C-alpha cells in the first residue's frame, strides 16, 4: 500500500518534438507545431491546419522498434511509453508488479480507413492486416507486449479526458496495493475519421488556434502520446533518479449536459477541479499554474473559464493552454499535459498561451502571453474535458 503517488519518469511525442527534450525546447522557445497536413492524406490538407508529429510511419517504426505497417497510434504510444520507462530507470521491472494503463480514442482506425476504401471503392475484399489492430485495446496490447508490462494492462476511452483517467486509475491501483508501478497516459494519431468528425461539428479553426482569446475560432487537431511512470512511495524512495513530482489530487466528474457541448456554467469542469483539490488537501489559492484544457472552441473556453471564475478568487493562478503548441491531441492530451506539468515543476516554468491577443473580456483573469522562468511552481492543476461530459482534473505537486 502507498498513500502517496510519485512521477518517476516521463515520455512524450507531439508535433513539437519526438521526445521530452525536444518538446521542452519548443515550449521554451515558443515554437508551435501546426502545419499543413503532410503525413495524413486528406482532401482538407490545404484548408485545415493540423499539428502532426513530424515523422512518417517508416521513421516512427524505427524509433519504436516496431513494424511501421501497424497503426501509427501504436508507434506513437510505444515511443513515448518506452521513453517514460527508460527515464524512470527502475531497473529490473520484471521483479515488480508493473502495469500499463493506456488510453486512446481512435485505436487503429488509421488503417481501418484503408480497409473501408478497399471494400467500398476499389476491391471486394480488404486486406485483413489493415483491420486487425482496429480496436483501442489492441493498440495498448501491442505496446504492453513489447514492453512486457503485464501485471495489469487496460485501456480507457472517455474522449478527450481519456488519458487523465488512465493516470487516475493507475494511481488508485498503486494506492490499493495492486501495482508497484504503472506507465500511464495515452495516445492518439491524426486520422481522417477525427479530422472529418470535428470538421462536421464546425469547431476546427482554419488558422492556428487561439485558446482563451476573445476571437478564438475553434481548435487545431494534433496527435501524439504522453506517458508518466507512477510509482509507490516505497519505489520512489529507492529511485536512482530524481523524482519529478507527486500526483497529489485527481477527480473525475460528469457534466451531464450534452453529448458534445459543455454546460454554460461548466458544472462538470467545476466539480472535477473542486474534487481534485479536495483529494489533494489543497485550497484554490495553493495552485500556482493551471494547464487549461483550453481547446480554443468558443464553448469549451467559456465553460472552463466560468468554472475557474467560480472556484478561484483573485489573485488568480497563472494559466495557459499548451494546445496552442501541440494542437488538441484528444486521447493523448491528458498524458501529454501531465508530462508538461512535471516539466513546469522541475524547470520552474509557466508556459505561454501562444497567439493570445485579446483575453476573454468576461473573465477577470487572462492566460499568460509569454514564457515565464524562475517561477514558484509548487502545485499544477491540469484539466482534461471531453465529449460525453467526461471531465477530469489532476494535481501535480513539487516534493
Amino acid at each position, binding site marked *: *500500500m502507498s498513500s502517496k503517488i510519485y512521477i518517476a519518469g516521463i515520455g512524450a511525442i507531439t508535433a513539437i518534438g519526438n521526445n521530452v527534450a525536444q518538446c521542452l525546447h519548443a515550449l521554451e522557445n515558443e515554437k508551435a507545431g501546426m502545419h499543413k497536413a503532410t503525413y495524413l492524406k*486528406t*482532401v*482538407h490538407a490545404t484548408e485545415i491546419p493540423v499539428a502532426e508529429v513530424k515523422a512518417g510511419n517508416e521513421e516512427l517504426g524505427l524509433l519504436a522498434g516496431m513494424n511501421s505497417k501497424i497503426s501509427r497510434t501504436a508507434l506513437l504510444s510505444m515511443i513515448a511509453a518506452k521513453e517514460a520507462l527508460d527515464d524512470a530507470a*527502475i531497473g*529490473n521491472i520484471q*521483479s*515488480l*508488479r508493473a502495469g500499463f494503463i493506456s488510453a486512446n*480514442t481512435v*485505436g487503429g*482506425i488509421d488503417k481501418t*480507413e484503408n*480497409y*473501408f476504401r478497399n471494400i*467500398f*471503392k476499389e476491391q471486394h475484399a480488404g486486406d*485483413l492486416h489493415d483491420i*486487425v489492430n482496429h*480496436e*483501442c*485495446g*489492441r493498440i*495498448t*496490447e501491442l505496446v504492453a507486449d513489447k514492453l512486457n508490462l*503485464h*501485471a495489469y494492462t*487496460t*485501456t*480507457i*476511452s*472517455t*474522449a478527450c479526458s481519456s488519458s487523465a*483517467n488512465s493516470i487516475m*486509475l493507475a494511481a*488508485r*491501483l498503486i494506492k*490499493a496495493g*495492486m501495482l508497484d508501478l504503472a506507465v500511464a497516459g495515452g495516445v492518439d494519431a491524426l486520422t*481522417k*475519421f477525427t479530422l*472529418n*468528425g470535428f470538421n*462536421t*461539428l464546425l469547431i476546427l479553426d482554419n488558422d492556428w488556434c487561439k485558446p482563451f482569446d476573445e476571437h478564438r475560432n475553434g481548435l487545431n487537431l494534433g496527435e501524439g502520446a504522453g506517458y508518466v511512470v507512477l510509482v509507490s512511495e516505497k*519505489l520512489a524512495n*529507492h529511485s536512482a533518479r530524481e523524482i519529478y513530482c507527486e500526483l497529489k489530487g485527481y477527480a*473525475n*466528474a*460528469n*457534466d*451531464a449536459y*450534452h*453529448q*458534445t457541448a459543455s454546460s454554460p456554467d461548466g*458544472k462538470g469542469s467545476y*466539480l472535477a477541479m473542486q474534487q481534485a483539490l479536495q483529494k489533494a488537501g489543497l485550497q484554490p489559492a495553493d495552485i500556482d499554474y493551471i494547464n487549461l484544457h483550453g481547446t480554443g472552441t468558443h464553448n469549451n473556453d467559456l465553460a472552463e473559464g466560468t468554472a475557474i471564475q467560480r472556484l478561484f478568487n483573485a489573485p488568480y493562478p497563472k494559466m495557459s493552454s499548451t494546445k496552442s503548441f501541440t494542437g488538441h491531441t484528444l486521447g493523448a492530451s491528458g498524458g501529454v499535459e501531465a508530462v508538461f506539468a512535471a516539466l513546469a515543476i522541475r524547470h520552474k516554468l509557466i508556459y505561454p498561451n501562444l497567439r493570445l491577443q485579446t483575453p476573454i473580456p468576461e473573465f477577470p483573469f487572462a492566460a499568460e502571453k509569454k514564457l515565464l522562468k524562475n517561477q514558484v511552481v509548487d502545485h499544477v492543476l491540469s484539466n482534461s474535458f471531453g*465529449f*460525453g*461530459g467526461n471531465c477530469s482534473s489532476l494535481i501535480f505537486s513539487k516534493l
Partner: protein
Amino acid sequence: MALEAIVLHSFFQNYKMKVFIRSASCISPQETFNNNLFTHEAKVYNTDFLDVVEPDYKNLIDAKLLRRMSKIVRMGVATASGCLQQAGITNVDAIITGTAYGCMVDSESFLKNIVLQEEQMLSPTAFIQSTHNTVAAQIALMLKCHNYNNTYVHRGFSFEHALTDAMLLLQENAAQHILTGSADELTELTFSVLKRMGIYKQQPVNNTMLYTTATRGSIAGQGAAFFLLSGEAGANDLAAINALQTFYTPAGITAIEQNIQNFLSAQNIPAAAVDLVITGRNGDADNDKLYDALNASIFKNIPVKAYKHLSGEYPTAASFAVWLAATILQRQKLPLCFKDAPIDEKPVKKILIYNNYQHKYHSIFLLSATA
C-alpha cells in the same frame, strides 16, 4: 537499496471485499430482459450471427432521445434503467462501462461516408454518437448524474476491467451505489471480418447444438448487461461477487488449472464447495479442448454448464454469464435450458464462472447466494 526488498503479491491479492448485486438487467439473443429465460424454453436459432431480443424501449427511454440512439446505446441505457427501476434507486455514485468495439454502427456509417463522399458534405450525427463513452455518457445524461464516469475498451477484458474499477471504488469507500456493465453491438461488416479471421463459423448452426459441431469458430453474439453494485448488503440482493481475476495469455492448460486452484484457495473454497460452474465453451473445436480438460480435472464432480449458445460469442459475453449466475442465485432455480444439470434438489450457494475469449483473455468470477 535493491528492489527485491519489495514483497511481491499478485495483482488481486490485496482486494478483499465482497460486493453485492442489488439488481441486474440483460438484453441478449434470449429473452433475458423480462427474465423469460427462466420460465420458458430458450430461443432456438439456425444462424451464424445472433441478434438480440429488444424490449419495447418506449416504456424505458424518452422517445425523443430514443430516436437518436443506435442499438448499443439503446441496449446500454435500457439495461441501466432496468437496474435502477428494480432497485428503486434514482441515481448512483458512479457509472462504469466496458465495450470492446464501441459504437460500431455509427463508426462504420461515418467511415463509409468519408470514403464514398470523398470527405465532403458529411453529417456530424454519426460522429457525435461514435465515441466509445457514448453509453456511459447517455446514462449520465438521462440521470443527470455528475459523478464518476468511466469507460474501458480493453478487448476481451472490457467488462472485467469495468467491474474491477467498480469494486475498487467500493473498497475505497468512494461510492455506495455503482452502475456497471457492458454493451457491444455487432454489425454485418464486423461480423464478415471476424468470420474471415475464423472467429465465427463458416456455416449457420443450430445454437442448441453449438457444442457438438466440431468445426472451427463460434456463433456470433452481442448484447448488454448492467448491474447495480453496492459494498453493503441490502435486503433484496440477487447475489454477491466474492472475487474476480483475469489472466492474459496463460501458458497452457496446466497453468490455467493452477490459476483456478489458486483463485479458489485465495477464497478458502475447495472446488467441491462450488455448486455450479458456468464456462465460456463456445463450440470452436480447438477452444473447447480447454474446457474438456478442465471438466476432467478441476471441475470433475461439479455440475458444469455453458452459456454461449444463449448469448453468442463476443468480447464482453462474460457479462451475460454474470447476469445468469446472479439470477440463478437469486431465484434458486436454473433456467429451463439447464434442467439437465444434476443439482435440482440442492440449494445453489456458489457459482464459479470461467470464461475465455480467443485463448487470450481468461477470467474467473466467484458469485455466492446472499439469502
